[in-house]
């Protein structure tokens, strides 16, 4: 065999090996998606979006309270996670220097690695224990704290991506540092920051563990913000481990709905991001 043939042979072997692994990875994802879509789609009906859960033994019913509950939990999470993460990121990228931002960055990365169940315990101790009962707010706090690290680091990264020449340009026109940051630098990075926040939200939307002992669950409507509430991930958990066939179907449907929502948010975020990078 000549050297050239050998080289071509190795190249072909490596190419097929990498191709095989790619197909393997993609196929795992698609099998999960297809299985979920098949089982979930079959069980999905209009009642799912409009009715409360049916009592055990009765068939039918839906999860409208869990869908609304997830929405409320995420709203609280956004109120806590986005402003904190955003302003913290602005501080790190634009104002901080010395050992303090280093410390913050390190702490943030550690916080990002904290298991979600620990976040749940934290929210339990801080909110549930003090208030004396489970609530939407407690669940929202757990999810909101989980959002902070990524919100903060994406803000920081996208602000770092804004060329220094823009900062100089604004300051040379007599703008103060904070004016420069909020009227030129942040707007220049806004699309990226927004898409990062959306991905962050999509990530915590599927969290179950921290909700188990904060928002708890609720087969009925949850009034206001201080009562326990149902949420899609917890409903999936409860229904999937139940012995009832009808509940299993509903769990599949809930999984499918949750996945579709997360996917929609992801796609929207990517679109915003591609718009951001194309006009630069």
């Amino acid at each position, binding site marked *: 065999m000549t050297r050239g043939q050998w080289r071509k042979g190795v190249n072909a072997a490596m190419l097929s090996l990498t191709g095989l692994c790619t197909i393997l990875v993609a196929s795992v994802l698609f099998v999960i998606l297809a299985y979920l879509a098949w089982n979930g789609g079959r069980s999905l009906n209009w009642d799912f979006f409009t009715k409360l859960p049916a009592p055990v033994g009765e068939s039918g019913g839906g999860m409208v309270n869990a869908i609304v509950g997830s929405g409320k939990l995420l709203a609280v999470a956004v109120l806590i996670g986005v402003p904190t993460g955003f302003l913290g990121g602005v501080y790190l990228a634009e104002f901080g*220097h010395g050992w303090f931002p280093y410390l913050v960055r390190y702490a943030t990365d550690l916080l990002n690695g904290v298991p979600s169940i620990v976040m749940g315990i934290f929210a339990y101790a801080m909110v549930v224990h003090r208030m004396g009962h489970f609530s939407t707010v407690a669940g929202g706090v757990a999810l909101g704290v989980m959002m902070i690290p990524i919100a903060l680091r994406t803000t920081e990264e996208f602000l770092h991506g804004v060329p220094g020449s823009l*900062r*100089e*340009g*604004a*300051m040379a026109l*007599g703008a103060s540092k904070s004016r420069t940051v909020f009227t030129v630098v942040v707007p220049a990075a806004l699309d990226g920051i927004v898409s990062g926040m959306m991905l962050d939200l999509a990530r915590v939307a599927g969290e179950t563990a921290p909700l188990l002992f904060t928002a708890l669950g609720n087969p009925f409507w949850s009034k206001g913000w201080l009562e326990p509430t149902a949420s899609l991930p917890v409903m999936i958990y409860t229904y999937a481990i139940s012995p009832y066939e009808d509940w299993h179907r509903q769990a599949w449907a809930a999984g499918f709905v949750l996945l579709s929502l997360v996917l929609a948010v992801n796609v929207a975020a990517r679109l915003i991001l591609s718009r951001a990078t194309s006009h630069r």
Partner: protein
Amino acid sequence: MTSVTTPMFTPAPPTGESKPREHSEVKLRTEDLSFYYGSFKALHGVTLEILERRITALIGPSGCGKSTFLRALNRISESIRNSRIEGRITLDDADVLKMDVTALRRRVGMVFQRPNPFPKSIFDNVAYGVRVNGLADQRSLKEVVERSLHRAALWDEVKDKLHDSALALSGGQQQRLCIARALAIDPEVLLLDEPCSALDPIATAKIEDLLFNLKDQCTIVIVTHNMQQAARVADFTGFFLMGKLIEFDRTEIMFKKPSKKETEDYITGRFG
């Protein structure tokens, strides 16, 4: 603006100029100005006088300190950590280093090496400085924007798309937009840091014409790598080498009869 001073290097009588030059006042003056990046001394005691309504060019090889000098004049260099200024800078005899930095930059505008339009509309770019400094109400803002774009010779090219993104303009147009943006707040001095180095010859020629037309209205200091450019546009030229001002004189003299050997070597292309 009370003292009438002659520049340090007394200019020779004008030669080959069509209109006679009236006496001009010193606008900006530096005295023994040194600049440090950390422990590195980038400028060694530069003393220089810049005359009002004249174009002053600063030339020299890369790393000679000409940009550092320019960026000290509006204190934009302050944003670099661990940097330090020594000496004195005066603007109309007022101490620049003690002045409120916002007020200083309102009077001393700057255009950078690479066009740096904000990712906003053309209108909002030009209006930015006016808004930040609260110089005009909404109605007169339009007039200011139009006048500034006229002064930067860009109006005819953008008048129908004022609300389009500034990033859609060509490089040369973007640089003129940056000049319009700087002119919108009516600066007394305009600093230009190699404004044409990222542009093609046609765009460069437009900017040079523009500088010529602007010099009745403000004092211009331009850093350039391009000696022909200095020769074409500047009334006075300063030559920097290794952080020192080697020679400063009328442009004709600098290019025809420089008194220092280093200047002559650089201008004739023997190094740099």
